[in-house]
């Protein structure tokens, strides 16, 4: 059952990811990315991380992508023109890079010896929170809150019209 769900979600994630890159209309890409993020959230749930799965939906699919869609709709972005001005060479180079990358990292991954622990794994919010507030991660945790504040102020300052 886990396997069936995983392969369905993985197929959905891959298909949507290809659509993100291949779609001409940026809003179509955004919607495809939302589908990818939701599929990934499902896979996180299958991998025993319910907290991260829900957080992915709340933060990524529910907030960041809404921001993307807002900007796309407010800037009234139209369909992209056809082939890039730099021609077909760049396209082939990009695909060759992608293939080479997959080959190299794939070579490492196939030689990986994964022995998953047999103890049932469920990363509940309580467990993750206990880890987050320990001294080794506490500073980073508090620093991210300052980071978000800085991003908030920065985004507002960057996007306002010159008065």
């Amino acid at each position, binding site marked *: 059952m886990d396997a069936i769900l995983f392969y369905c979600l993985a197929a959905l994630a891959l298909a949507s990811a290809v659509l993100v890159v291949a779609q001409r209309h940026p809003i179509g890409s955004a919607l495809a990315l939302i589908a990818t993020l939701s599929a990934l959230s499902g896979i996180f749930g299958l991998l025993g991380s319910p907290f991260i799965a829900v957080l992915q*939906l709340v933060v990524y699919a529910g907030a960041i992508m809404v921001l993307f869609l*807002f900007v796309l709709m407010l800037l009234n972005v139209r369909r992209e023109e056809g082939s890039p001005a730099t021609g077909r060479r760049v396209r082939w180079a990009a695909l060759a890079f992608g293939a080479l990358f997959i080959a190299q990292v794939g070579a490492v991954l196939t030689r990986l010896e994964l022995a998953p622990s047999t103890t049932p794994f469920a990363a509940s919010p309580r467990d993750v929170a206990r880890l987050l507030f320990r001294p080794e991660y506490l500073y980073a945790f508090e620093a991210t809150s300052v980071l978000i504040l800085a991003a908030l102020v920065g985004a507002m300052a960057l996007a306002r019209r010159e008065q």
Partner: protein
Amino acid sequence: MTPLTFWQQLAISAALIVVIVSVLLGLFSLMTWVERRLLAFMQFRLGPNRAGPLGLFQPIADGIKLFFKEELIPEQANKWAFLGAPVVAMTTALTSIAVLPYGPPITLPQMRWLPEWLSWLSGRTIALQIADLDVGVLYLFAVASLGVYGMVLAGWGANNKYTLMGGLRSSAQLFSYELALGLSLVGVILLADSLRIADIVASQASGRWGLPGLLSWNCFVQFPAFVVYLLAATAEVNRIPFDVAEAEAELVAGFHTEYGSMKFALIQMAEYVNMITVCVLATHLFLGGWLAPLPGLQQVLGHDLGLFWFASKVAALLFGFIWLRGTLPRVRYDQLMRFGWLVLIPVAVAWILVTATGVVLWGAR
């Protein structure tokens, strides 16, 4: 009790899905009639009372009318977004009902007349909940965040500047008040020490800190959070006084201007199902779920009255929503955003600080 096999669990879940979705959609039709009649009485008129006895067939008549209306799609509209938006809205609305319990766990009686392959049902305790997630409350936030897309797609897909403005404004309203909604629930979660809805209901049992009966419900113990939740929930489901999204005087009809017939019916259905979901969640998190006001009233003559108490609390909240609609005028959009960000969120955060201090000093129970 022998543990259930995968197929038995699947059968129970399938049956629960069918029952819960049918009851909710039936409740939606009933709500349309109830709302129109109650609003009419509040406005000193009668409301629909012609179709059938007391006008009870009015929802059926509305459904038939909407079914036969012409399906219009504006020429320049993005077909996928235009047709997909009501689907997204309805899907998220129905997905959110999966984690809520609709009554106390019921224990089936011993049924000796069942055939062999159904005998595992005898005496089985079933929670009236499709999915009992450990992160139930967080899951509802996630689905609420996804609910914004119905509006955004509807507003943009119709290729109409009014719907686009309306859609963007409504989604901004929605995710602003989602923050306040989430923050108001943190205090409740701190006291219950769990994100599971059944645990939160159990934490409101009588006797918390020595308080009798209904005084240990979260609506009294966490009163500011309750007020923030109710206001934020009203804004989340686009009800008056926060319904600038659909007001006829503003932006035509907001994001659903170009929708008619069954697509409009789907959007309305999604909105009502959201309203019912929000009321059920408020009942579980603040009003004690299926707990009786006094412990003695929970079991009468050997029968568990939990379902009755739960239904009456949800009905009271729904009546409250309709009452608000009949009483208050609409809030202007900038007043709405100001209220959400500058009043509700600071109040919610301050209350979290108070609750957290209390939990550290005196413990959660």
